[in-house]
């Protein structure tokens, strides 16, 4: 693992070579791990451990705990200096048989506390030169190895956190845009879709804000038991506003039908239920019945009938969409995969493309008819209901979609493992 810079929560950290001492030497934020021995002597023990500022780093706390006050940094530095170019070991096996004159402070190394100086000194080393040295060195190596592994794990953790953070930032951004998804390729600047969809995103946000205003007004009126005539005008305003979305969608679809019809403007949870660019009115009616009670027998029957009617129309439109899909596939699959060279081949290809273009063009009509069905169905519902029931219906519809949007926001912001 070489030295590299990465960002965690906006701060730049530089990972250093594997050996623990090098880490310590460079942990005050220096770049790279090359001979920085001169720095070490200027740095106190605690500063040495701040390398990963704010990071929960086991080895850091380990260093804190095990940094023995007796440990001479100058001699430590020397030890360090020998290891810079051989980043694998605390004590270098190549120099393990170094001369006793070496000022390295000898210490018994406990594998879990590699830097603990336990008071051994040069004299002891002289008594059992080879054996003890070898044992010590082996223990050092072991300790260093473990430290490296710990550090590796930690850095890996940091990398993952960084990725997670970037993801989270993106998702928050997305959620702020009412859950409108920006494609992963990041290519929102395509010629057609760019302008059309961006404009619609703004319009839709505005619509949502106004929608919530209308809803609040309506809710206040319902709970304060306003008169029917007052309620009626509020209901009419709210309905007019609700229908405005269909007009906005129609305009946006001219610029980019795919963005609208495939629900890129909706929140993810709403998109679960997507049918030709929006909700299914038959489903909405099913959900509303429980919120509108008490209903008369006549009303129940009428609503049931309306639901069936809507469903019929939905099925018909769905069949048309299927036919469109099939036809498009047939058109594009018609000729042999390899267009024969020559002008006639090219003419076929162009003809094929022209036909396919025409078919795509009809998507806009399907969206329009689907929205028309939604608008008409809701309009028909209001003729069945009393004013007060209409108000409650509008509130229920709004609450339902608000919850779907809230769910989407939560979903997008969820912690991911």
């Amino acid at each position: 693992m070489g030295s590299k810079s990465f960002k965690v929560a906006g701060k730049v950290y530089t990972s250093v070579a594997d050996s623990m001492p090098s880490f310590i030497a460079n942990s005050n934020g220096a770049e790279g791990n090359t001979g920085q021995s001169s720095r070490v002597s200027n740095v106190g023990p605690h500063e040495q451990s701040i390398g990963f500022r704010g990071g929960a780093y086991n080895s850091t706390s380990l260093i804190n705990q095990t940094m023995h006050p007796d440990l001479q940094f100058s001699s430590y530095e020397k030890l360090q200096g020998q290891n810079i170019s051989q980043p694998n070991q605390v004590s270098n096996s190549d120099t393990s048989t170094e001369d006793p004159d070496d000022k390295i402070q000898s210490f018994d190394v406990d594998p879990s506390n590699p830097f603990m100086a336990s008071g051994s000194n040069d004299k002891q080393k002289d008594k059992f030169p080879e054996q003890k040295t070898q044992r010590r060195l082996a223990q050092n190596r072991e300790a260093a190895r473990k430290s490296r592994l710990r550090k590796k794990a930690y850095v890996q953790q940091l990398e993952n956190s960084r990725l997670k953070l970037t993801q989270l930032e993106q998702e928050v951004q997305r959620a702020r845009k009412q859950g409108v998804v920006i494609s992963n390729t990041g290519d929102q600047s395509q010629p057609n879709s760019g302008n059309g969809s961006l404009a619609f995103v703004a319009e839709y946000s505005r619509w949502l804000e106004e929608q919530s205003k209308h809803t609040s007004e309506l809710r206040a009126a319902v709970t304060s038991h306003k008169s029917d005539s007052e309620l009626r005008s509020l209901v009419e305003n709210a309905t007019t506003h609700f229908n405005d979305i269909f007009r906005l969608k129609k305009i946006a679809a001219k610029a980019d039908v795919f963005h609208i019809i495939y629900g890129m403007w909706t929140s993810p949870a709403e998109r679960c239920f997507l049918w030709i660019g929006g909700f299914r009115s038959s489903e909405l009616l099913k959900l509303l019945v429980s919120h509108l009670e008490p209903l008369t027998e006549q009303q129940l029957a009428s609503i049931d009938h309306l639901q069936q009617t809507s469903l019929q129309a939905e099925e018909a439109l769905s069949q048309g969409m299927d036919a469109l899909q099939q036809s498009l596939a047939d058109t594009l699959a018609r000729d042999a995969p390899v267009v024969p060279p020559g002008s006639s081949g090219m003419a076929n290809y162009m003809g094929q493309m022209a036909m396919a273009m025409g078919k795509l063009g009809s998507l806009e009509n399907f969206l329009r008819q689907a929205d028309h069905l939604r608008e008409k169905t809701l309009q028909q519902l209001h003729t069945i209901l009393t004013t007060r029931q209409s108000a409650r219906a509008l509130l229920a519809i709004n609450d339902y979609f608000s919850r779907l949007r809230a769910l989407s926001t939560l979903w997008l912001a969820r912690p991911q493992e």
Partner: protein
Amino acid sequence: MDRVKDLASKSAAVIFTKSTCCMCHSIKALFYDLGASPAVYEVDHDADMEWALRRLGRNPAFPAVFVGGKYVGSAKDVISLHVDGTLKQKLIEAKAIWF
């Protein structure tokens, strides 16, 4: 136009279509689902009829739907009438369906 009117009056429910039009497919499906058996005429190869139907003013002009010999409109009109129950009523009156 005469030919159009002629054909339109021959059957209780008549739909003029174009082969490339998938919405026509939807409206046909709706009529079948209602139990009506509409007479379907493809006007791809009849420029006069196509032109006559376009002159009726709807955009898109197809499908062009007639019930009981009278022009109902295109897909949008059919959906409107279907939702408020008028379509079924007209079909019953024209004896395209009985209930």
